[in-house]
């Protein structure tokens, strides 16, 4: 292991401490930070606009001013780069490139001393993890409020509150935020905090890249949300952005095309970072077969991200080229192939479903095992089934296209591979319930969410079997049955596991304990209103209500009214969570280092962990889930220069 050599303690290796430039005003304006980020974004925008206008004038292109071009290039490429340079994300690399002396890496970017440090470029994986989580929950609230707006519209047939374009925009931005700004990065946030600790590593492999990948995320989020203010309103072709509808959309569509690039780049960088960290920075003795399943889950997820994400980037670039450069990738009159978009899009977006689920599988394995006080049932098969899902996940994308008019012969093979994914997924579900069997079950809030996940995800998985079967899919595709299915998978599935993870690691992240009673209220209210919201959607869908409609047949009025009421309760249940988390973070009771008596490494250090995680590199000597095995231990830690002591304590 290379960890000792690469990450010495700061005092030992770098006695010279970096001093930031003096002078408060000067420093505020020219020093790295949000202020410099904002003015540099504006500066880059103006420079790029002048460059575009200059070039267009030089070649005498008419008209001189094209809003979409300026918006896309100056607004969504140059300005974000200026912002990133301004906050200081590139400082180290730029100094290195131009030959200026680079700042000696004294790890002064590590740790957070006050809340202000969370608004700076920080290279500490624990700070970045919390930056991720707070940002993603912000966008979760924004996306959730949008959902409540369009649910209000759907409470009755006919149009009441919003017009069709606004409705389509709300639906599209809701889904886009939830996928790209909540579920995917929230898992990245949890993993950012937990995975290096679980591995016994002092940080991620590339801390500066880690910081950069976080700061790309708010850029994408701001793009998606701000699309509402431009002429024509937000992008309204759905989060799937099918061509050619997307190509004829107003200006807002560009925000989707470009926002996905930034979110995708963030995702790819993080995934590369996880892969290198997991492969090279495991503590001595931490073999692959001793890694906790959360690490396994993030390993497989990262592989999916790295392989698949470039495809959605490509699909959105092609659409933007069609819009701006008048290429004809998906324009039939120009020889384009409309279904090509869907093939490329789903080649990412089906694996994306697993990107949004596998980390949750990891979280649930940790929670169920430590709360049942039993080893994860069939650990190796659990890890192998993750690999099985990873591999099969790339061979099923066209099941989204059974009614799309693609080549007929593709349907049956894609149906078979789709159904086969039920096998590794089933193994995981059965292994979780077998882990419960004869355990000593602590029904804490994270455990409630984990068990809620197991049952709700089973429903989502089973409705997935219906949709995997081509004939049923032909009847149910593009209806509210799909909406029900994805919310059972992504809300009852992914979001429940995110809540489980937040509650489970809250004491580790903040050093304080959340309120258990409020946590249970949160779970039960969420669980009941979630089912009341999404279960009836199966019904209206099968009965004939298509998805993505602002108006619908009067026959579905009563049920939709019920769904809307339930969705408002679901929204309200989040308030309990927010209240609990904020209050507990500020003045909750101080948490013990290991409140769950779990065995994995993150629990063997203080809460919150020390700035470099481990004062001594732990020596891993066994599996992570050896509950109930007399004398078994996961790792041995040396505390200072004293005698090694055994873990778990």
């Amino acid at each position, binding site marked *: 292991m290379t960890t000792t050599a690469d990450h010495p303690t700061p005092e030992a290796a770098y006695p010279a401490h970096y001093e930031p430039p003096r002078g408060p005003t000067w420093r505020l304006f020219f020093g790295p930070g949000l202020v410099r980020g904002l003015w540099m974004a504006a500066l880059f925008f103006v420079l790029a606009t002048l460059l575009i206008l200059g070039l267009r004038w030089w070649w005498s292109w008419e008209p001189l001013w094209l809003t979409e071009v300026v918006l896309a290039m100056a607004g969504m490429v140059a300005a974000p780069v200026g912002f990133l340079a301004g906050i200081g994300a590139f400082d180290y690399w730029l100094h290195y490139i131009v030959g200026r002396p680079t700042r000696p890496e004294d790890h002064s970017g590590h740790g957070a001393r006050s809340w202000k440090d969370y608004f700076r470029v920080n290279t500490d994986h624990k700070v970045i993890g919390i930056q991720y989580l707070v940002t993603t929950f912000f966008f979760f609230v924004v996306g959730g409020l949008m959902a409540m707006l369009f649910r209000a519209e759907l409470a009755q047939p006919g149009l009441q509150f919003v017009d069709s374009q606004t409705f*389509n925009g709300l639906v599209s931005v809701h889904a886009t935020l939830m996928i790209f700004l909540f579920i995917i990065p929230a898992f990245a946030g949890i993993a950012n905090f937990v995975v290096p600790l679980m591995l016994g590593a002092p940080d991620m492999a590339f801390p500066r890249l880690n910081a950069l990948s976080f700061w790309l995320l708010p850029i994408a989020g701001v793009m998606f949300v701000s699309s509402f203010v431009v002429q024509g309103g937000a992008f309204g072709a759905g989060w799937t952005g099918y061509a050619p*509808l997307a190509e*004829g959309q107003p200006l807002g569509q560009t925000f989707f095309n470009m926002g996905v690039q930034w979110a995708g780049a963030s995702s790819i960088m993080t995934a590369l970072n996880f892969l290198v960290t997991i492969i090279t920075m495991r503590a001595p003795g931490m073999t692959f077969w001793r890694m906790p399943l959360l690490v396994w889950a993030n390993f497989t997820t990262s592989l999916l991200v790295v392989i698949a994400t470039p495809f959605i980037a490509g699909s959105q670039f092609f659409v933007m080229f069609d819009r701006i450069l008048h290429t004809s990738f998906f324009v039939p009159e120009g020889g384009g192939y409309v279904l090509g978009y869907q093939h490329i899009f789903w080649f990412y977006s089906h694996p994306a479903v697993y990107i949004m689920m596998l980390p949750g599988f990891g979280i649930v394995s940790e929670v169920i095992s430590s709360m049942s006080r039993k080893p994860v049932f069939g650990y190796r098969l659990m890890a192998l089934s993750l690999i099985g899902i990873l591999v099969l996940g790339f061979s099923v994308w066209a099941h989204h296209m059974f009614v799309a008019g693609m080549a007929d012969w593709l349907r*049956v093979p894609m149906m078979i591979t789709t159904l086969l994914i039920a096998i590794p997924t089933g193994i995981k579900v059965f292994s979780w319930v077998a882990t419960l069997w004869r355990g000593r*079950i602590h029904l804490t809030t994270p455990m409630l969410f984990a*068990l809620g996940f197991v049952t709700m995800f089973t429903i989502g998985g089973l409705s997935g079997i219906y949709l995997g079967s081509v004939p*049923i899919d032909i009847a149910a595709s*593009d209806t509210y049955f799909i909406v029900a299915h994805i919310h059972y998978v992504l809300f009852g599935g992914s979001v429940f596991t995110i809540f489980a993870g937040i509650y489970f690691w809250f004491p580790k992240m903040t050093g304080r304990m959340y309120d258990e009673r409020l946590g249970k209220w949160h779970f039960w209210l969420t669980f009941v209103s979630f089912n009341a919201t999404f279960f009836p959607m199966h019904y209206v869908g099968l*009965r004939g209500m298509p998805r993505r409609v602002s108006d619908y047949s009067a026959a579905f009025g009563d049920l939709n009214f019920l769904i809307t009421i339930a969705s408002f309760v679901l929204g309200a249940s989040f308030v309990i969570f927010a209240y609990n988390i904020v209050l507990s973070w500020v003045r909750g009771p101080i948490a013990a280092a290991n409140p769950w008596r779990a065995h994995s490494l993150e629990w063997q250090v203080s809460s919150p962990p020390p700035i470099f995680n481990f004062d001594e590199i732990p020596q891993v000597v066994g599996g992570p889930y050896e509950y109930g095995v007399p004398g078994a231990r996961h790792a041995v830690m040396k505390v200072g220069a004293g005698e090694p002591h055994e873990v778990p304590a």
Partner: protein
Amino acid sequence: MRRGIAQLVAVGVVIAVLVTAVAVVFQWLPTSASEEFDRIQGVYWFATIISIGIFSLVSSVVVYSVWKWRVPDDDDADGPPIHGHTGLEIVWTAVPAVLVIAIGVVSAVVLARNGEAGNRPLEVQAIGQQFAWKFVYSDYDDVTSGQLVLPVGQETRFTTSSVDVIHSFWVPNFGQKMDAVPGIETTILVTPDRTGEFAVVCAELCGLGHATMRAKARVVTRAEFERWIQEQQA
């Protein structure tokens, strides 16, 4: 142990009965008005029976375990160190494999039957345009109508296409659906087996008027159909 298993089975049966009640008390599927949908409903029920079994199994073990083995917060003992059971793991790999393959085979058979065009089906073009449907009867001098009228019992082949963006031709009671894609032609077969009025719905988001892109479908007797078509030709 034996008593425990009996209790678990009892929990499972209660859950299965409840879930089955939900599945049969509500009428989840619209009335079938085509032979194709009759067959699809068969696959639906086949999948439903399997789903009820799996869901009851999983949720009963969860409920039973929590009921039986929940401990107070201050309990600090560990459970038995059971790491796995190869036999069980083989069972829950093999049994789902058999079940999903069974669903796959049934689905493939129904798909093939639903895609088999018999002798001379009635040819109708369904053309999508923002935001209306147009039906062209190729066998009858390209009679064009905004309303879909079909003779009962007559196998009909829809050739769908679009003049602008993607739409999706769907009559919920026919259970068949096909995207109308600009630049290519796609086909789907429907054999109406029940007279009545049904809704033609656009199922693929196609822009501002997507929600209102609807048309009427009437399934009538052969004689009424002939009369209607002659009126249109006149």
